[in-house]
């Protein structure tokens, strides 16, 4: 069942995408390093095509794991020695800002693919949208490719922002589980501080209290969840999320700083149905 559930949409999307893509599909690649991924779009300049892949074949508001590979247009060969970085930008009517994102680094054990993540904390709308600039250097020579990208709103809330008492803004994003199931799921979130319009560093050593609820089921909660603690190696927060049934789950959150002060969020009680800080899962 799972096979069809996940592979079938990918397969269908692949077919659709392959119809619209160029005829360079026939390029011989010994190992398909982007297997299982779907191309979202290409950013091209005069020398290269920067191919952007995600698992779903599109960007979405919230956390996005992004894989990039660069093709030399002259030789049709994928570049394997680039140094890369990126800048996602939201162009709003009144201002522009970036968003939390990681470094873009070569995937270990692979030749041609580079990976990182971007947390789009807001979706595009009719007047405002995102663009992505990829800067890369190959053998000391710098290149740049840029394009508008489409970041539609997610069906459920996968990212949220809040402001603490001191006026500092934060972004909280759901990273995993991507495919939740009725079980104890590993849950991962990212927490970022909005230092400036361009700087969103990872917030370290906070703690996220987790209380998953089903509002449609009398606010049923599940047992044996674990609050999310900071993991320095991944620079993310990991915990456990128990889901007792399929459906819509509201992940009520409380975020605590190193001193244990609650920056945002409230306990769910008989009288308080949900926390003001929450993310959502539906499956």
């Amino acid at each position: 069942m799972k096979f069809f559930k996940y592979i079938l949409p990918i397969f269908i999307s692949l077919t659709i995408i392959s119809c619209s893509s160029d005829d360079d599909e026939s390029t011989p690649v010994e190992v398909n390093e982007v297997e299982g991924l779907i191309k979202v779009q290409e950013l091209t300049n005069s020398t290269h095509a920067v191919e952007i892949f995600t698992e779903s074949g599109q960007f979405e508001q919230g956390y996005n794991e992004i894989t990039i590979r660069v093709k030399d247009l002259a030789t049709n060969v994928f570049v394997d020695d680039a140094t890369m970085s990126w800048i996602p930008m939201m162009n709003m009517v009144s201002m522009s800002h970036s968003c939390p994102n990681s470094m873009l680094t070569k995937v270990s054990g692979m030749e041609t693919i580079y990976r990182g993540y971007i947390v789009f904390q807001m979706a595009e709308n009719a007047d405002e949208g995102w663009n992505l600039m990829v800067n890369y250097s190959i053998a000391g020579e710098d290149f740049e490719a840029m394009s508008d990208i489409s970041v539609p709103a997610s069906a459920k809330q996968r990212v949220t922002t809040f402001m603490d008492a001191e006026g500092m803004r934060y972004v909280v994003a759901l990273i995993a589980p991507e495919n939740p199931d009725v079980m104890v799921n590993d849950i991962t979130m990212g927490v970022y501080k909005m230092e400036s319009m361009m700087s969103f560093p990872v917030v370290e050593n906070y703690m996220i209290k987790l209380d998953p609820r089903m509002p449609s089921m009398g606010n049923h909660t599940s047992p044996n969840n674990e609050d999310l603690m900071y993991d320095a190696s991944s620079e993310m927060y990991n915990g456990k999320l128990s889901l007792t049934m399929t459906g819509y789950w509201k992940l009520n959150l409380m975020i605590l700083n190193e001193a244990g002060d609650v920056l945002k969020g409230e306990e769910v009680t008989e009288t308080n149905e949900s926390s003001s800080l929450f993310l959502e899962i539906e499956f």
Partner: protein
Amino acid sequence: MKKTIFLLVSLFIFSQAFSQETENDTIKKVALSEVIVIGKANLKNKNDVKLLSSIDQYLEKSNKVTMIKRGNYAWEATLNNMLSERISVTIDGMQVFGACTDKMDPITSYIDVSNVSEVGITSGQQGSEHGSTIGGGIDFKLQKSYFDKEELTAGIETGYETNGDAKTVSSEVNFSNKKFFINTDGIYRTSNNYKTGGDNEVLFSQFNKYNVSLVSGIKLGKNNALIGSLIYDRATDVGYPALPMDVSLAEAIITSLEFQRDSLNSTLSNWRTKVYFNSVTHVMDDTKRPNVPIHMDMPGWSDTFGFYSKLNYKKGKHSMLFNMSGFYNKSLAEMTMYPNDQNENIMFMLTWPDVRTTSIGLFAEDEINLKENQRLKVTARVGVHNNEIKDEFGLNSLKIFYPEMEESKTRMLLNLSSQYEIKHKKSAFLFSLGYGERAPSVTEGYGFYLFNSFDNYDYIGNPDLKNEKSYEFSAVYNYTASKFKAGLEASYFYLNDYIIGETAPDIGQMTIGANGVRIYTALDGASLFNSKLSVEYKISPSFTYDGHVSYHLGRDNDGTNLPLISPFTFKSALQFKKNLFDAEVNMTSAGQQVNYSSYFGENKTDSYAVFNLNASYIFYLNKNKLYAKAGVENIFDKEYSTYADWNNIPRMGRNFFINLSYTIK
């Protein structure tokens, strides 16, 4: 306890005080077992049941069995105040398991009187022939003809009851000769909502069901025979007024093939080998209920394959019985809830995570005639029992509670008993000792958020439960004289690792409106005490008086009452019999339920007394026979409920019934 002993002793003395002459009686009074004869054969016997009573009503008339009622249909049999997970209920030795997680379909609901010729009820460990048990065994014998002189019979029976406008019709056609027989029958029952005493309608107490069966045998040579049976039972639109959900479909197919060999040599006989399969589908439904907080579907399936092979051995003083049996059961149940916001995904869970149970057991019994008046009977059963969760989704669900749990668990089960009987003049004494073990049921081991409307908690199974163990002692005294018979019986069970639900305060309920979650756990110990006095007195050749008094107690080691323990009960009947006319007036009553368990949602159910009256006559029309019976139940239209009524759902008020049975030969 002191009170109980005092009561017992005084009852004992009381019963000793009567003494009359001896009489040979066909009904064996001295035993921890009882046989209820059902159907046609019953016409000649006791007159206390309606002809077209359901199996449940027959069982209710038994002095050993009490029926737990969640409505007017599919009652759950209890023996020694123990419910279905503690007793072994089989159909002709076949294991059948209900497919409902809420016990709305005890297997007795999948057979009907048209299928069954008699019910064997055995108390305690002596009832472990067909499966490991704590409280005892109930086995339904399927009705079948014998290889006899050529005969074709047909019969039609109809019944009508005013309360609930209940109609029953059944028919059968049987053919037999010396080499072949075939029995076919069908029965259809339908009832609207019944009314309680005081004329209050009990909503959602309707039911409809039909049952057809076919049994056929062929003789293979002089000594051997092959017998096949098929039962199909289907109930639809069944209401359960005591529960939050009804049933749109409860369906079972029960099949078997048996090879019989009457004798092997001078010592071995009655070799019976049977293979069987049954499949049960049960669909709960709440679409007809107003104001449900959330609509849900709860279908369940239970399929069982099994076999047994049994053999009698008789030599000298020893009469032995060996029975090797095994089964493989698959139990799966789902719950799908539909959010009020239709854009939301449906909510789905597995409430029985496709549990496969494999069980094999060897039972042996030896009845030794020590002296003319003394008899010793020992039984032993050794079993291996394995549960395995086949569905990964289900296993992962349970791992939320038990992260370390294994998908498979194997247990050894042991059941032992010994019984000593001594007769002296008009008296007979019987003492029995037993030790038994049982594995947790699928619900107790692997249930996932099963709502119990009795205590209003969601229940979670516990795969780490140990075997429940029972130490039992029972004693029976019977006095038999020509006009007077009395029997006194007491049994005591001490249960170790008694399986029961315990509130888990930190876990949130799933069911909207539930009080919380309970997890099956084991109490260190619990005690169950049952005692009963029966008397029968022939006042004159036509009049017989029958009386029963029983007292029960169930407590855990801390002295807390266990749930569903009967209060003091008293039954009394006066029968009149002359030629082909029979009549009876009887009374059933119970004292106030003083020892109730508030932890499990019980309250102090009031005392009551209910009176019933019936009469019957047999008309012979040439070779054909017409049997007519009519009566009134709950004559005074008393509004009452008993300790065994789920959520104190009131019982039926006044009910007039009439049954007609016509047999063509």
